[in-house]
């Protein structure tokens, strides 16, 4: 046991003396959280829009005021004729132009019908879509409120409610994904690289020729990363709670246990990679391409799995991150218990068994 402890201490020295490792371990999780939280967001806030009001009456002014005071939009341009619209978009000074037709209020009064023309910059399709939807929603809201005084013949009022994320906050989406991404990165990438580094430096030769057993070498290498990954899980949860106000609806203990399971899985993946490669660069490339990219793209983190082509859906189904993200969403956002995630948990357990068996079979007690 004493020589095992010595091994783990040595591993910590390696980690704390390598600036790159330290950066990946402690700076990256925080940077990623902040990036996804503040920069990569689907929410509309202070979008710049222009107004072209051909009518200039009470109603158009009221609607304009409503748009401006919603918090989603800032009116930066007031246009006077159609020709200016093109220029606005070319210079990129606005994302959307709202055009009111002439005699807007009069038409609305007489014909019960008036039109607003929304023109959006769809070079960024998602944002354009969102902005148009938000604008329509505000206009509709105005119309319904005005109509209360008037009795309309028949109306179906649609009231939607966004469960588990009432305000459609981006943070709900990215925290589970970021957790998966960071755990894969630290556990799989760093461990595989650190084992392969010993091979590259030739120190593995001495370790193998010593009385240390292969299993002790592996566990000794992996243990520090397991501990530090767990620290990162807690950091991410604290950050998302304190900065972005994301509550944990379900059991914290269950969430931590499932995270530990995912850490162990990622570590066994890292070990598996290291047994099949002999250079740090290869190990890094495999981890990046084979694990990190799928964790971002093919896991339901950013793009929903259901909308993908069949082949990619299969890839998603063998990607451990997919299951972990479902588990985290269920526990954290929906507040569900173990019974709702037992299937996913079972899949992860199966993967752990598979990769550890494969690694043990492939790990060499000799150099060849």
């Amino acid at each position, binding site marked *: 046991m*004493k*020589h095992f*402890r*010595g*091994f783990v201490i*040595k591993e910590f*020295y*390696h980690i704390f*003396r*390598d600036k790159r490792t330290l950066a990946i371990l402690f700076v990256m999780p925080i940077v990623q959280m902040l990036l996804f939280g503040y920069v990569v967001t689907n929410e509309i806030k202070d979008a710049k829009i222009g107004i072209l009001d051909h009518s200039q009456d009470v109603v158009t002014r009221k609607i304009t005021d409503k748009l401006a005071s919603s918090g989603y939009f800032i009116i930066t341009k007031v246009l006077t004729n159609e020709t200016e619209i093109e220029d606005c978009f070319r210079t990129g000074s606005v994302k959307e132009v709202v055009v009111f037709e002439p005699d807007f209020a009069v038409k609305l009064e007489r014909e019960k019908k008036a039109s607003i023309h929304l023109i959006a910059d769809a070079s960024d399709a998602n944002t354009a879509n969102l902005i148009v939807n938000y604008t329509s929603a505000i206009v509709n809201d105005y119309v319904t409120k005005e109509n209360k005084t008037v009795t309309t013949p028949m109306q179906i009022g649609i009231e939607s409610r966004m469960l588990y994320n009432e305000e459609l906050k981006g943070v709900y989406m990215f925290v589970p994904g970021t957790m998966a991404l960071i755990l894969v990165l630290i556990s799989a990438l760093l461990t595989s690289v650190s084992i392969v580094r010993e091979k590259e*430096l*030739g*120190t593995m*030769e*001495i*370790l*193998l*020729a*010593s*009385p*240390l057993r292969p299993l002790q070498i592996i566990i000794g290498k992996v243990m520090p990363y397991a501990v530090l990954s767990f620290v990162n899980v807690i950091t991410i949860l604290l950050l998302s709670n304190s900065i972005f106000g994301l509550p944990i609806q379900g059991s914290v203990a269950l969430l931590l246990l499932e995270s530990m399971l995912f850490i162990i899985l990622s570590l066994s993946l890292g070990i598996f990679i290291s047994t099949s490669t002999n250079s740090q660069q290869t190990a890094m490339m495999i981890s990046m391409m084979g694990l990190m990219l799928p964790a971002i793209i093919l896991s339901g983190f950013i793009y929903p799995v259901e909308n993908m082509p069949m082949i990619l859906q299969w890839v998603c189904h063998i990607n451990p991150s997919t299951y972990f993200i479902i588990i985290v969403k269920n526990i954290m956002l929906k507040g569900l218990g173990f019974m709702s995630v037992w299937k996913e948990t079972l899949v992860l357990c199966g993967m752990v068994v598979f990769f550890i068996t494969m690694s043990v079979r492939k790990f060499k*007690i*000799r*150099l*060849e």
Partner: protein
Amino acid sequence: MQTVVVDNLSKSYKQAVALKNITFEVDAGEIFGFIGPDGAGKTSLFRILVTLLLPTEGTATVLGYDVVKEYKKIRNKVGYMPGKFSLYQDLTVEENLNFFATIFSTSIEENYHLIKDIYCQIEPFKKRRAGALSGGMKQKLALSCALIHKPEVLFLDEPTTGVDAVSRKEFWGMLKSLKHSGITIIVSTPYMDEASLCDRVALIQNGNILKINKPDVITTTFEKKILAIRSSDMHKLLSDLNSFEACDSAFLFGQTIHYTAKQNNLVMPELQNYLTGLNHQQVEINPIEANIEDCFMSLMNQAS
């Protein structure tokens, strides 16, 4: 008692044959040297003996344990210093030593007496990272690490390659004193001048052992007579000697050319005339005793 017994050992890789039917024994307490050029099979042999590689054919035992079946027992009792500098560059001198002590379940204090002579020279730098040490100091540290668990046999794979002449000399001095504490030392080197520092040497080339004996026996039983020849134009001299009819071999050895004749028939006046006829100035021809390199060159010629 024999510390290492190797019987008909062969090792081949996918594309190359590293060792061909090697048989030898190493006695307890001796310094046994493997002398041979790069690619001779020294590293493969060492790795088989420290249980890092499996032999393709044949058997080998270290301290009476089979290198294949009883590899765990061997790993406890041997010290191994690979050819490549294999310590942790980002750990300090002391941390490296401490690490290797703990993985063998011992401590620096317990076996300090064994490494004292070597380690005391690098101890002033014990807080320095191993990566920042000079070549000679790295070598001393590596040796200390290989010794810290008090091994019964020490395998040193080319320990002096890339080390300056002074450090090399010091290193061999350390091996001599380790021998006195009863450790069997098996060492490989590409430097022929180090052969005379071993108790016995094996000349190895292309996976074959050409000869095993005490270094002085190898040289004194060398049957060919050798002339050391020099002139003002050494380059021309070498090509002229090689094209001389009676020449068996001619190699440049430092300041002179070592020359042997066919049928061991050294006719010095004839040679002198031949060379002066070719306008060589300041020609000196002296008969000399063979050194280990002469023997090796000659054995190599015979083998090929």
